[in-house]
């Protein structure tokens, strides 16, 4: 089911980090994995200083929700890792 981009559902997130360095670490960890092909979700990550911006586009609400949920689970893990294992 191909739907023109203009007709697709979308969601935007802005995730603030304490510093640009932490935002970059999280960005580098999270941007490696591509979205599963079957979900037909497009995810775009970018950095703006200490803010990580994420834009999701999907043709179905269900796949959009799954993708966002999964992103938050991964983000939480990365943030906890940064908090607990950052250099002193």
């Amino acid at each position, binding site marked *: 089911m191909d739907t023109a981009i203009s007709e697709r559902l979308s969601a935007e997130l802005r995730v603030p980090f304490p510093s640009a360095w932490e935002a970059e*670490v*999280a960005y*580098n*960890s*999270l*941007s*490696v*994995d*591509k979205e*599963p092909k079957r979900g037909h979700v497009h995810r775009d990550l970018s950095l703006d200083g200490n803010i990580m911006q994420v834009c999701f586009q999907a043709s179905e609400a269900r796949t959009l929700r799954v993708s966002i949920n999964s992103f938050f*689970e*991964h983000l*939480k*893990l*990365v943030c*906890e*890792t*940064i908090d*607990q*294992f*950052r*250099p002193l």
Partner: protein
Amino acid sequence: MVVAIGFEGSANKLGIGIVKDGVVLSNPRHTYITPPGQGFLPKDTAKHHREHALSVLKLALEEANIKPEEIDVVCYTKGPGMGAPLVSTALVARTVAQLWNKPIVAVNHCIGHIEMGRLITGAQNPTVLYVSGGNTQVIAYSDKCYRIFGETIDIAVGNCLDRFARVLKLSNDPSPGYNIEQLAKKGRQYLEMPYVVKGMDVSFSGLLSYIEEKAPKLIESNAYTPEDLCFSLQETVFAMLIEITERAMAHCDSNEVLIVGGVGCNKRLQEMMGVMASERGATLYATDERFCIDNGAMIAQAGWEMFRSGVVTPLDQTTCTQRFRTDEVEVTWRS
């Protein structure tokens, strides 16, 4: 001196291990155990890994008495395995590699088993039987490649055993295979079942369907006990594995055989392999559950070998892949 830390999470075990020049400094592991009759699903397994990764990592560093700055390389399992658990584990590896400013090495899970087996047993150039819940392969090294001589054409031998354990509602603690092994010791009566070797390959799915269908009736009518069926299943599938391993050894003129993977800690399999090896004048090498079953140290050890031979994976290429064959990796660290 090279210190490597390895992150493993391709199946239901989350393991993190630290290896320093061939010495395992720490190797803690946390296993996701499901209720009897149930297998582990990717989503729940990934959640398990996310929940335990950081506490296991703390334990790995404490037990090894190593500070992050003493680590030289961060190694993680790229595949093969279940997608979501692999990614959850890789995320932690990528993040600590950046926090500690260390290079990363992506490791093939099967190669991890082989290199750990070689390290622990001292086997030089063995024919390898790699048997686990997800993989069944007979492997021999030649010309910078671990070549697959034979493998399963459908499900892994461990998957066959695990799924039969579900039919009998055996506990998954510590593992379904272990509990089958214990019951099999009390089996007396052998039930003949399909023995499927096709050239160098084996097949277990037909055998599993057969026993899944027959078992409830045979047990209900008291014709066979669950112990008899566990015994019969083990004898049949292990005989198939020994047959293809022996053929590979004959082909390669090999005098060493190494068993690795989770099913490899089965004492009956080791015993049968030992008989075959001694008849051929070969030596059997096997390890115990600490190193046979998925663990972090095996990923650290394979990564240690790769790193020393000059392999580094750029951060943006530290992806995971569910399919990743043993023979896809160029073995740069062996002559």
